[in-house]
């Protein structure tokens, strides 16, 4: 484009412009403190309407009182002073969305903060929206392959599901989330990672990790850092889900991770107390359940008639000393379609990911599992449940009958197989082969410390020698007799060659 052309274009644009004459509602700041402003005037303002301050900061009117409005300030409130003008915009808070957000790190207001230059917006989406209604939805029946064996087999997640990751600090909650994002490469999935009140160093590490794994091409990171105002932590998850909805509206499948909602609830508690709303249990305000339920209801799978697409949500909750009966954990457990419990004890025993299989559930995910996986995982689940029961017994004596011993040995091997390193997602086909070998007893005579090595080599061998089986799993999601026979032969050959 030549300079002349640009100037012509600009001239045309300016000619098209008509200045609007309108009456604007304004108020004055009466009081500013801790990120909250009390504003007089603004008599016609709506709840959660966006306002702008004279200094350019945005705010959201949350408390509409008789003679004043309580506004949370989104950003730096040090420049706002008493007597400043406040304008009502008549709109609910909006964020810019576009395909360009992919690969970017944005703040809670949707502006880039990664230093990669400005981002051209295509549309503006309101951050608060009513969740899709019943008739627009479809039941969950497509899998989200997390690449984490224990999850894909025992606590499967489907597209459109809400699965909670819950556990104490340092138990690997974020690690599971990041591994899941890394495994979405080529799975036709857009990922949104919402970081709420996290250390900036941690976010930097995650971004670098995703970049390294080639995952940033399909990922958006929304960040409200620990040093930013509580109001930004409060809106960040809604910003994230609005970005997710933008992609869902194009019929795409989206995975969104809220890391973590405990800090979100704390930020909202801070805002509520400053706005002088009455405190309830654990000093959280009365509407803290609605805070999370309206957010998580926006995760859904839409039917084709309404545009298709889905939003799968993985909220994270951090517990204190394993107390899952605290207020926020129980709330979020009851909202979600299941939870994955991570335990410190297991983590230090070396069982990583430290998933407590007994108390983790997925209420809708089993419909989304592929048939082959369902077949092997059913036996695996049973093996593990029996193992847990027997494990307690076995500590008391050694005179056990053979059947019990066999079950114990099988259980130990199952636990071993489910261990997995971080950043090492496993493809579904490989998982099926491993579990097949495990539940059909091919690993029973392999020493426990050799299990990992056996697994690795078995996969290498079978991929070369049981191609039909792999093809059937990839294409038809289930094996046929022919493929199974080939796999059994390959496993037997492999074992014979090795022992």
């Amino acid at each position: 484009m030549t300079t002349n052309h640009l100037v012509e274009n600009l001239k045309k644009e300016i000619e098209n412009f008509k200045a609007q004459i309108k009456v604007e509602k304004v108020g004055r700041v009466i009081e500013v403190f801790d990120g909250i402003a009390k504003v007089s005037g603004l008599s016609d303002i709506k709840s959660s309407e966006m306002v702008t301050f004279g200094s350019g900061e945005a705010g959201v009117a949350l408390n509409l009182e008789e003679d004043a409005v309580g506004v949370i300030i989104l950003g730096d409130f040090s420049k706002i002073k008493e007597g400043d003008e406040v304008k009502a915009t008549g709109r609910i808070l909006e964020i810019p969305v576009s395909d360009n957000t992919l690969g970017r790190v944005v703040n809670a207001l949707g502006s880039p903060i990664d230093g990669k230059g400005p981002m051209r917006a295509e549309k503006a989406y309101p951050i608060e929206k009513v969740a899709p209604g019943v008739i627009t939805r479809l039941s969950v029946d497509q899998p989200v392959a997390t690449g984490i064996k224990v999850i894909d087999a025992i606590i499967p997640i489907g597209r459109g599901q809400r699965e909670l990751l819950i556990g104490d600090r340092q138990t690997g909650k974020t690690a599971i989330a990041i591994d899941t994002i890394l495994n979405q490469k080529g799975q036709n999935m857009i990922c949104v990672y919402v970081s709420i009140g996290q250390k900036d160093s941690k976010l930097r590490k995650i971004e670098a990790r995703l970049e390294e794994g080639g995952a940033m091409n399909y990922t958006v990171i929304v960040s409200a850092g620990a040093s930013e105002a509580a109001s930004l932590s409060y809106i960040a998850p809604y910003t994230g889900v609005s970005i997710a909805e933008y992609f869902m509206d194009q019929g795409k499948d989206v995975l969104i991770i809220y890391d973590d909602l405990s800090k979100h609830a704390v930020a909202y508690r801070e805002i509520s107390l400053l706005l002088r709303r009455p405190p309830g249990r654990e000093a959280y305000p009365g509407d803290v359940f609605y805070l999370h339920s309206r957010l998580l209801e926006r995760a859904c799978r839409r039917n084709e008639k309404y545009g298709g697409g889905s939003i799968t949500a993985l909220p994270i909750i951090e517990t204190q000393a394993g107390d899952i009966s605290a207020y926020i954990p129980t709330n979020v457990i009851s909202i979600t379609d299941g939870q994955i419990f991570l335990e410190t004890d297991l983590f230090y025993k070396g069982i990583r990911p430290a998933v407590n299989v007994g108390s983790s559930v997925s209420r809708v995910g089993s419909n989304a599992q592929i048939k082959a996986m369902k077949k092997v995982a059913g036996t695996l689940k049973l093996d593990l449940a029996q193992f847990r029961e027997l494990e307690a017994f076995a500590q008391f004596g050694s005179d056990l009958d053979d059947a019990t011993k066999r079950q114990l040995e099988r259980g130990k091997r199952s636990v071993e197989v489910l261990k997995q390193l971080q950043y090492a997602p496993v493809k579904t086909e490989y998982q099926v082969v491993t579990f097949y070998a495990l539940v059909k007893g091919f690993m029973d005579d392999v020493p426990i410390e050799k299990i990992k090595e056996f697994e690795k080599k078995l996969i290498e061998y079978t991929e070369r020698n049981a191609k039909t089986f792999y093809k059937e799993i990839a294409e038809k999601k289930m094996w046929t007799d022919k493929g199974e026979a080939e796999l059994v032969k390959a496993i037997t050959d492999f074992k014979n060659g090795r022992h």
Partner: protein
Amino acid sequence: MSATVASAKRLHDEEEKTLVHFLKKRYSAKEVALTKILDEKLLGGFRVEANNEVIDLTIKNKIRQLQEYLTRPAN
């Protein structure tokens, strides 16, 4: 009632009278106490503030609106 008018240049008596008349009609007020402010930064035009409402007819506001229009998100 009271109102504030800010302008870049001093208003003529005639202009002021029209303005007061307009305000009286708009807010059904008997008296209007007008506070006048001179602000060169407004560049031109004037801006009235009354009853929690602002009518901004300054050049500065027009330029700001033009800026918003030119940098708006594409549809």
